[in-house]
């Protein structure tokens, strides 16, 4: 297999707060190949966004990479001078955010904002850049792109803004687009359109997509590969089929069981009992053990290693380990 586009290699990120050190991500390893869609799944605060931000080199000042590294086309990204990262950002790596309304500058027109990376990274003349910006807006499916380019963010709807945001991030044909919960702030029909658009663009531009989400429906529809995170660690990762058909880790099983199934009218959806442990003092053993129905004595004695479960599918769980090697 050829070299992946992005490799996370045992990345650990710590956030230093007054109350202590928060281990926001620990030993996160996975890779993204060119043109592939990888979904990063997990509940709020499990380290999804922190992992994505460290990929962009945009960690908040209190956070730092404690160990491990991220490689882009084989070259390490972490610890690179800011100028190198800045050239990569926008050019090779792009990102769209959760709330398109706040991700666009309210006092600049849409066109003015799309033009900037074009002038900066592609060295286009302002006029040519404007033409390209209008073309980009057209490409993301906005009607009357020339008018849209001249309008201000407050004049557009959330869905239109997210499209504009996508146009902006696509401006320099990035190799990887990070979408941090791109549809959370949008209503259901619009979010389906946006996801469709992302999928179409991904195919036509052959870019990789790192999709951060907690919507498993979106994952099933979009992703090739799924990475499930829990309390800062990757608990299970694998091709989307394997994860959905044969989830191994109890947490993944719990997540999938908690999905509403159309047609099935249940009084209550199944849920995972208990609470996420406080990230300030995570246990020294499997952090899911306290909530796990299948937990055994061993689960409270150390961190589980990854067990390989077939092609690219692996899981960090003692129970799975036992079952596989029994």
């Amino acid at each position, binding site marked *: 297999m050829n070299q992946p586009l992005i490799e996370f290699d045992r990345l650990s990120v710590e956030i230093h707060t007054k109350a202590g050190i928060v281990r926001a991500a620990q030993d996160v390893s996975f890779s993204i190949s060119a043109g592939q869609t990888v979904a990063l799944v997990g509940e709020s605060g499990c380290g999804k966004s922190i992992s994505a931000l460290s990929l962009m080199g945009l960690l908040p000042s209190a956070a730092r990479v404690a160990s491990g590294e991220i490689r882009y086309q084989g070259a390490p990204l972490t610890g690179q001078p800011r100028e190198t990262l800045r050239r990569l950002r926008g050019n090779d790596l792009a990102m769209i955010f959760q709330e398109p309304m706040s991700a*666009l500058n309210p006092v600049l027109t849409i066109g003015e904002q799309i033009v900037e990376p074009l002038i900066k990274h592609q060295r286009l003349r302002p006029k040519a850049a404007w033409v390209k910006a209008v073309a980009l807006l057209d490409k993301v499916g906005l009607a009357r792109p020339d008018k849209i380019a001249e309008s201000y963010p407050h*004049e557009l709807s959330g869905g239109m803004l997210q499209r504009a945001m996508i146009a902006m991030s696509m401006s320099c044909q990035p190799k990887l687009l990070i979408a941090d919960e791109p549809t959370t702030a949008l209503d259901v029909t619009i979010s389906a359109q946006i996801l469709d658009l992302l999928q179409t663009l991904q195919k036509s531009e052959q870019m990789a997509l790192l999709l951060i989400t907690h919507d498993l429906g979106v994952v099933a529809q979009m992703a090739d590969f799924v990475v499930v995170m829990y309390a800062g660690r990757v608990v299970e990762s694998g091709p989307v089929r394997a994860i959905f058909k044969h989830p191994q880790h109890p947490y993944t099983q719990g997540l999938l069981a908690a999905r509403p199934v159309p047609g099935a009218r249940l009084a209550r959806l199944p849920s995972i009992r208990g609470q996420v442990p406080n990230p300030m003092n995570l246990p020294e053993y499997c952090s899911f053990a306290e909530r796990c129905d299948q937990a055994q004595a061993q689960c409270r004695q150390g961190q589980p290693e990854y067990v390989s479960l077939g092609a690219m599918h692996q899981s960090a769980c003692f129970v799975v380990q036992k079952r596989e090697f029994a």
Partner: protein
Amino acid sequence: MRFFSSKMRQRQDIALAASLTPMRQALRRLRHNRAAMSALIFLLLLIAVCLAGPWFSSWQLDTTNALQSRQAPSMDHWLGTDFLGRDVLTRLMYAGRISLTVGLISVVLSVALGFVAGALSGYCGGWIDSLIMRVADLLMTIPSLPLLIALGALLSELKIEPEIRIYMVMLMLSLIGWPGLARMVRGQILSLRERDFMLATEVLGLSLRRRLFGHLLPNTVPILLVVATTGVAGAILGEASLSYLGLGVVPPTPSWGNMMDSANSFIDFKRRPWLWMPPGMAIFLTVIAINVLGDGMRDALDPKS
């Protein structure tokens, strides 16, 4: 039918309002503010008179006439003459040019300085923030009038030419003005930089210069405009007090402040109000008009109103 058409028109109006830029919307609100518009008209008139007036005056700026000194207002001299027999109205108009220019330019300088300092301080944080803010704190702890007086005395000691001195006075006034502005801009930037769109500019790999001037500056324009407007009033007052004390713009260059100097003499103060009333009124009305306009702009630009 009629109801329908009026509904249509209303909808058109709404569509029109929506397509206006934020700045145009603010201008529209400003136009409905009577007090602010009167103040603006007054100021424009004042500027027009100061610029064009001297051409129509039959008197020269510096022509002295010992025989006609300290004359009361008459048909020849509408506002009388001063102790050297110079026409007060003509001098008042020239002085207006100087005072308004000093006010405007010193504010432009302090806004430029204040924005750059405040934006760097707020956006970069760390030691840059500490350094800039401590310098600003230091300048703000020194009472401004004594500082200005000391600087003015220094200028007199160095025997600076009156023409160059005007520029020095502008610099001095902007030196006093920028720290307050820098603090305000810093506060704005601190909240703006946390917004997603600033993260987005970083994601797009834009340079610091583009982020500061392309994305942050337009967001602070409303507050800069308001502060700058009221700042002009402050600068005019500062210039007037300095020049009144003989430390700002010095004769023969006229300014509203140094024309007020004649109120120093008790006889003139009591018997010849035409010597000090006109510049006094000019300062008073100008400052009030600018402040009213500034208030109106604040109301118009505040999105919460």
